[in-house]
Structure formats: C-alpha cells, structure tokens
C-alpha cells in the first residue's frame, strides 16, 4: 500500500503509451492519451494525500483539523480542464481529417506523407 498509488500511476503511463504506439485508429489513440493523463491525476493526488485526514473543506469540520493537500487538488482541476480542451481540439482535428481522407487508420493515412518522386 505504501507504494501502490505510485505503481498504479506508472502503470497507467506505460499502458497508455503502449496503446498509443500500437493504436490503429486515431480516436482510440486519443482515448489512450486520456489514460496517460489519468496517470498524472493519480500521481498528483497521491503526492498530496495524507492518512487519517479530511478533505480540505472545513465546512463540517473545524478549521485546523488535519486535512489533505488542497494545492495538488487545485492543480488537478486545472489539469482536467487542460485535458478536456486538448481532447476537444484533437477530436475536431480528427473529425476534419476523417472527412477528407475517409479513414482514421494511421497506416492508411501514411501514403500521403510517403516520398513522391518528380
């Protein structure tokens, strides 16, 4: 348990990157990107966690009660916004790409980029 959150975060990063490397569909690739991002959520929140502490909201508990770190939570909130914006942009790009090329398989898209003589 002492190291499990760190391991989970590293595992999510690895599996997300693995998915991106082997992806055969751009929408799937964006999904894998969100897994990579989830690893940063877990890592950040784990870095601010503390056993036997309350959430950093002193509504029903008096101020001064031991609480977990509010800073990392604020950072994760920002992170979520960043992820949402980037994902939205990527989806828009992918949508347009699909309209033009009729496919989202990276292997079928590549011929355009291949060398052309002449």
């Amino acid at each position, binding site marked *: 348990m002492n190291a499990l959150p760190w391991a989970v975060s590293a595992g999510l990063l690895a*599996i997300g990157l*693995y*998915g991106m490397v082997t992806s055969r569909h751009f929408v799937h690739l964006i999904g894998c990107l969100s897994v990579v991002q989830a690893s940063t959520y877990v890592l950040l929140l784990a870095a601010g966690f503390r056993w036997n502490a309350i*959430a950093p909201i002193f509504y029903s508990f008096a101020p001064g009660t031991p609480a977990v770190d509010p800073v990392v939570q604020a950072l994760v909130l920002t992170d979520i916004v960043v992820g949402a914006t980037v994902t939205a942009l990527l989806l828009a790009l992918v949508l347009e790409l699909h309209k033009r090329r009729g*496919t989202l398989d990276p292997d079928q898209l590549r011929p355009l980029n291949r060398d052309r003589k002449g």
Partner: protein
Amino acid sequence: MTLLLLLAAAGGTVVVLTRSPRRQVFAMAANGLILALLFETLQAPDVALAEIVVGAVALPLMFLVILASARMDRAPRRPDAGR
C-alpha cells in the same frame, strides 16, 4: 482504497485494449467513474466532481458525437475509393 487503485489500473488497461472506438467510449466513461470514486476516497471531492462531469459525461459524449457524426467506427472506406 487499494481496491479502487487496482480498479483504476484495470480500467486504464481496458480503455487501451478496447480497440473498437465505440466500445472504448463506454470503457472511458466507466473508467471516469472509477477515477471519480478513487478521488473521493483520496479526499478530493472537488476533483471527483470535476472528473464525473468531464471524464465520465462530457468527454465520452463528445467522443460519441464525433463517432456518430463521421460514422468513423464503421468499416473504413479506402482512401482512394469513391473520390
């Protein structure tokens, strides 16, 4: 919490290994819910709420709309065919 952490790892793996984009969306939504629960137990209710509204609802919805609009989850057309 241990259980949720392991579930989160499994959820991420399922998202990656679900190769069909449409099914992956549902995996993503489920994963978003797991993550939200995990954040709640990590004493981060603010983040959990944000993860529910974004990770489990808004983003999967966008994915679905995209997939529906372009019908890109069907068999891909050959790039040269038909145009």
